[in-house]
């Protein structure tokens, strides 16, 4: 086995601390880029930025689960729904502030994730996919089952967050929403980034690569897998909560199976198991539908064709991307970067 921790046998204590500082620096850098982007972009682009940020929060967790701990989930759309409904109920009915409501969304989805994750540790491959699929299909139906609490098919609506007064009266709402989502995404980036480089991340990879070997090393395989699921559920809950803040809604129609499938697609397309891949995946989720729509409508076709063409183009992009970049956008970039780095010097 390639021990995941064996990459850096010469590292000693203290390195961890500098790693923490370095990743904090990177998160600050990402934050500055995000801030500048939100300042320069228009209101609609700020909204897209916000969408990208909440998708990133979900994808970062999912990429840990699937890419790092080796479990497949087709149910993360439903975990987003848990976060979104929690937030809408707390903010709309109980008049909580957004920050504690987001924490509650994380907590509630982590609890739900624990239950699903505990079941998940007993299942492998397609069985696990099937179980989480059932979860994705079944959970939104709860909203219809208890319409007085969850608003039925129509879902819940909350008031938009108000930007604090010190930002000025004319501060655009969309930018404020982008900031809220952006802060959530940065917290996830920092937490997941560090966790993956810690012993927990190594345990995830060890379990993914060989369960027997991992348990011989003293790891409790079931516990590690459940932890990975809970972690990713918490991220999905945060993403769902942020979605509810940005769009001010939680409705069954927003969390259909298609969402869970496109989340999985996005992490694979972005590059499985890396935070960078999650960023690319979020960009794909936000930008690709608009591009395919614009492209489809730039040809003058009959409405029946042009309505369905975006879906076909989306599929085409996925197929081509998987053929050309089997390891996703991030894998392709890494290969290109590696090629550039190698080319000037003579190897071996």
């Amino acid at each position, binding site marked *: 086995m*390639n021990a995941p921790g064996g990459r850096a046998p010469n590292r000693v204590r203290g390195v961890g601390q500098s790693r923490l500082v*370095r990743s904090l620096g990177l998160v600050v850098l990402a934050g500055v880029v995000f801030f500048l*982007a939100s300042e320069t972009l228009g209101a609609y682009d700020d909204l897209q930025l916000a969408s990208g940020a909440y998708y990133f929060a979900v994808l970062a967790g999912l990429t840990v689960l699937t890419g790092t701990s080796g479990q497949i989930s087709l149910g993360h759309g439903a975990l987003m729904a848990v976060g979104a409904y929690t937030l809408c109920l707390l903010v709309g009915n109980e008049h909580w502030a957004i920050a504690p409501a987001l924490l509650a969304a994380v907590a509630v989805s982590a609890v739900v994730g624990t239950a699903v994750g505990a079941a998940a540790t007993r299942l492998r491959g397609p069985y696990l996919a099937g179980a989480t699929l059932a979860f994705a299909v079944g959970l939104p139906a709860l909203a219809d089952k208890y319409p007085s609490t969850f608003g039925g098919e129509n879902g819940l*609506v909350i008031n938009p967050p108000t930007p604090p007064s010190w930002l000025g009266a004319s501060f655009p709402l969309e930018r404020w929403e982008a900031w809220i989502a952006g802060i959530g995404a940065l917290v996830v980036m920092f937490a997941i980034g560090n966790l993956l480089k810690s012993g927990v991340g190594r345990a995830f990879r060890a379990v993914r690569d060989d369960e027997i070997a991992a348990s011989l090393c003293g790891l409790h395989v079931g516990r590690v897998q459940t932890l990975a699921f809970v972690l990713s559920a918490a991220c999905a809950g945060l993403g769902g909560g942020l*979605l509810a803040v940005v769009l*001010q809604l939680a409705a*069954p129609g927003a969390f259909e199976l298609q969402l869970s499938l496109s989340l999985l697609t996005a992490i694979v397309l972005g590059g499985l*198991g890396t935070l960078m891949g999650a*960023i690319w995946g979020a*960009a794909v989720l936000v930008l690709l539908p608009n591009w395919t729509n614009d492209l489809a409508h730039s040809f003058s076709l009959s409405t029946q064709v042009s309505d369905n063409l975006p879906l076909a183009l989306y599929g085409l992009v996925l197929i081509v991307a998987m053929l050309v970049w089997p390891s996703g956008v991030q894998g392709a970039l890494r290969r290109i970067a590696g090629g550039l780095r190698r080319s000037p010097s003579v190897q071996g």
Partner: protein
Amino acid sequence: MNQVSIRPRAVGVACALIVALVVAGCGSSSSSSSAPGVTATSITFGTHQPLTGPAAPGYSEIAPASQAFFDYLNAQGGIYGRKIHLVIKNDEYNPTQTVSVVHQMVLQENVFGIFEGLGTPTHTKVVGFLNSEKVPDMFVASGCACWDNGASQPYTFGWQPNYTIEGKILGQYLKQHFAGKKVGVFYQDDDFGTGGLAGIKYELPASQIVSTQPYQPGVTNVAPQISAIKAAGAEVLVDFTVPIYTALGQLTSFTLGYKPQLVVSNVGIDPTTVGGLLKTFSKGKAGTELIEGAITDGYLPSSSETSNSWIALFQKIHNQYDPSAPFDGNVEYGMANAYTLAQALQLAGKDLTREKLVDVVNEKGAQLSGPGLVPFRYSKSEHGGYSGVEMGQVRNGKIVLFGGPLVTEPTAGSPITPYTTAQPAPPASGVSVP
């Protein structure tokens, strides 16, 4: 082994790249005109429609039909020399998408207003935004009572009869013609279905309603609901369903050997759409015969009534500007709604602003007339749309209206009264000013 690691340096690079992509993806669009979306030669509206997905069959024809009517007007010079454009965005009937595309149209594409946004679970998520941005939200394509609130949502107007009004008139008909018969109601579990059910309950004695069964859109097995209604012994089945569920319900009834008198909301009965769905689902074994004899209602003349001068006009426009779609109730809906908007724009005058359009519908909206059989409920406080329906039945695969239009209010106990003013003839060109 698949080496998994995070390249922290790359995080920053990617962030910068994404920003670049987003910036590249958006063109700056600013208009110097005082009202967004209006120039000397054009007015641009936007709409969100289910062009794909479960709500698409039938409904995807509506907005292109509206555009066809605008094309017809534009060919005659438009309204005050301005051509009307409609930006049609697909929201797949998904509220997340609705919010996204409506923000895009309002904030980035600077549309003058939103027109004919389709669906209750979708459009309810943008009403707050449109009203806070003071964007006219004209003639929502849904009969939810939730649009009818001029005080808290001054910029939002409904158009089609509210489902409770429709339910009341259907309920009264059942009370009169199916007295003592057991009634089962199969309804969509949202404001559409519950609104219609409420209207039925206002009129029909509670003892007559033996079973009410909701369905969730997206769940295609309706056998539990239909079986329960059958088991309760219902002799009349009332459907507050969208076309796809009317078809699924009828196929299930057929399989179960259940043959009640069918009653369907006008939203879910268009024979072309439902017949087509029945054909597709049954692989050609069934068609419109499964909805033959169904009782329904309408607030526009039936699209198969070719002797009606409005239908003749719409048919002509359809043949010229939108020939690829079938000429059915959905196409008629889109054109009739477009006519109402054009009439309101005509009334609002040459110096168009968002406020003026809203004010003119508040003040003179009740006088707007066109293909509708009944008057509109528009005033400063009422933003409800058509005030009633006429009863109808599917005969030989076509809807035939009978008995004359009836109007009422969406409240319990308010009387249902006949409306006798005849429909005006369509103008020779353009739109007429009431």
